């Protein structure tokens, strides 16, 4: 399994460290990227995602550890000797060149003849549907058109891997979604590896085959969007994804297939199959997604607690009810408007919340 992974992977990071002065930007990061994979690296600013990308591009050199590109160790190899083009957050298009000259640039630097350069650049401009702007100045283009020029410029050398550093962050919501589908289909057509750095969960989850979540220079979790969404590994990931209700308590006794957990807000049951390597008295943290929370006017329910309404937010066809437990923990309940209509959801009113013990997910990394 591991060997096969290695032969199929185009990128391998082996306990890579990057320090700026005394500060760790990236601290012992290991992962591999498969050929033709769309990998998103996600995290908040300063988490080391961009530094990781710049190390793949050869713009930063790792302080420690090894980076392999296509089987070759590339530590210390200059960026101009690699074929790892990048699409920049600022786009970094050359303002003194026309659209076509921008696209030709990578070929020119590699000594491709003028005739071939023009032909290949125009082919990519056509593919990106911006051939009609070939002789324009960069300043005459719209945001979406510039984005396409940046993509054409990076892809014109036909690399095996494309690095993207938050390329959509400057676009408005509509254009962002459109460019996401352009990127997705482009990646599928070309069959090359995309490494996409973003702080946006919607971008990462809608496009990527796998997502790497980083924080403070370390990897918190790697997995498919579904895996990460359904089974976050730890509290950081669960909180980062933002939709889960998190409870922490101690395992007190096992009855049949259920463990009972004593938490500050009461005792709850969870499916014992989800608890691994834990014994009586150990602390566990579990989450219940906002959609899996059930709510009633009042009355004590098994596996439930009484909460106070804080506020309500409308999200399209559903609403999110923000509530607070007696111990002050904040919970979210997401339901259709119909389900909330029979309840008193004014701030301050009391509601009874409960959930199915089988709908809990225990965080294995806590």
């Amino acid at each position, binding site marked *: 399994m591991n060997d096969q992974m290695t032969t199929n992977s185009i990128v391998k990071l082996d306990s890579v460290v990057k320090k700026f002065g005394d500060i760790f930007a990236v601290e012992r990061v290991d992962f591999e990227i498969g050929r033709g994979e769309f990998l998103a690296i996600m995290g908040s600013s300063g988490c080391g995602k961009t530094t990781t990308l710049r190390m793949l591009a050869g713009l930063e050199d790792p302080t420690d550890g090894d980076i392999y590109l296509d089987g070759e160790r590339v530590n210390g190899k200059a960026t101009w000797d690699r*074929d790892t083009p990048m699409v920049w957050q600022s786009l970094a298009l050359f303002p003194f060149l026309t659209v076509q000259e921008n696209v030709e640039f990578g070929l020119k630097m590699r000594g491709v003849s003028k005739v071939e350069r023009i032909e290949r650049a125009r082919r990519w401009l056509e593919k990106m549907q911006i051939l009609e702007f070939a002789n324009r100045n960069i300043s005459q283009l719209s945001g979406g058109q510039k984005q396409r020029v940046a993509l054409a410029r990076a892809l014109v*050398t036909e690399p095996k891997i494309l690095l993207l550093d938050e390329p959509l962050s400057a676009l408005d919501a509509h254009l962002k979604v459109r460019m996401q589908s352009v990127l997705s289909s482009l990646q599928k057509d070309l069959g090359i590896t995309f490494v996409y750095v973003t702080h946006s969960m919607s971008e990462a989850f809608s496009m990527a085959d796998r997502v790497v979540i980083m924080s403070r220079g370390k990897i918190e979790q790697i997995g498919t969007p579904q895996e990460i969404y359904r089974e976050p590994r730890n509290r950081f990931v669960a909180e980062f994804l933002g939709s889960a209700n998190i409870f922490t308590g101690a395992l007190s006794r096992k009855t049949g297939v259920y463990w009972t957990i004593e938490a500050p807000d009461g005792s709850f049951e969870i499916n014992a199959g989800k608890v691994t390597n834990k014994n009586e008295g150990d602390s566990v943290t579990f989450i219940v997604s906002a959609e899996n929370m059930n709510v009633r006017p009042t009355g004590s329910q098994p596996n439930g607690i009484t909460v106070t309404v804080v506020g309500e937010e409308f999200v399209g066809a559903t609403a999110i009810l923000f509530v607070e437990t007696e111990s002050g923990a904040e919970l979210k309940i997401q339901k259709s408007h119909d389900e909330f209509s029979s309840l008193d959801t004014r701030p301050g009113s009391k509601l009874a919340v409960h959930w199915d013990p089988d709908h809990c997910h225990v965080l294995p990394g806590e």
Partner: protein
Amino acid sequence: MTGNRNIVINGLLKLHILACLVFIFAPIIGSFVFSLNSDRFPSLPLGHFSLQWYRLILEDPFVWAGFFNTVFVGAIVAVIATTLGFGGAYTDFRYNFIGKNAYLALALLPPTIPVVIMGLAMLAFLSRISLSGGTFSVIIAHGVMCSPFAMAIIRLRLSQMDPDLEAASWNLGGNEWATLRHVIMPFTKPAIFAALFITMAVSFDEFAVAWFVSGLHETLPVKILGFLQGQVSPRINAIGSLAFLSSITLIVFAQMLMRNPSTGPVEK
């Protein structure tokens, strides 16, 4: 209320600017007017219109020699100073190192030194290494004086550059030299030309240092002093007007290049 006050203030400010301009340009205009006057002495009322003083200087081989010397020195100084200034500015843009502030302070220092002291020092130094008293020595001295101007102009332009542009070029396969040639130079092109014009104009007008080090190879400003010491002649007005026109032309070119730096020259 505020509207009224603004009108008053605006009026005063405009008057102030006008007064400044008159203060600066009145002597120059005066000199220009008298250069076209037939009278030997600059006095009112004016005599009749005449180009005789221009004719006289155009017939004077010493004026021509001084003029060619000035242009020759100015052109070479412009190239040297702009090359040095570009190097200094790019170093500042690209690298961070210990003592960078000291480096910048030293690099930008020459214009702050009084020219007489500069001229004396240059003379003392150049004569010690047997380089004084020639066109070459004026070029060296002016090169030192003009480089900081070129550096300041090019530095300003580089500060407007997205640093990602350079990295993008490296990332697309251009090594550092190729990137310098295909990205940094095209981006700074307007500033490079502006620096060429400004440094040429500075060298053109510079008198004190040239006086110290030029020896027999006098530039035009040094020639003018020679005229003044000999006799008061309206030829001075004619030379002065021509020298002013040459300098202001160079400065205007430089200003035009620097005014709209976002639209660099684009090859069609």
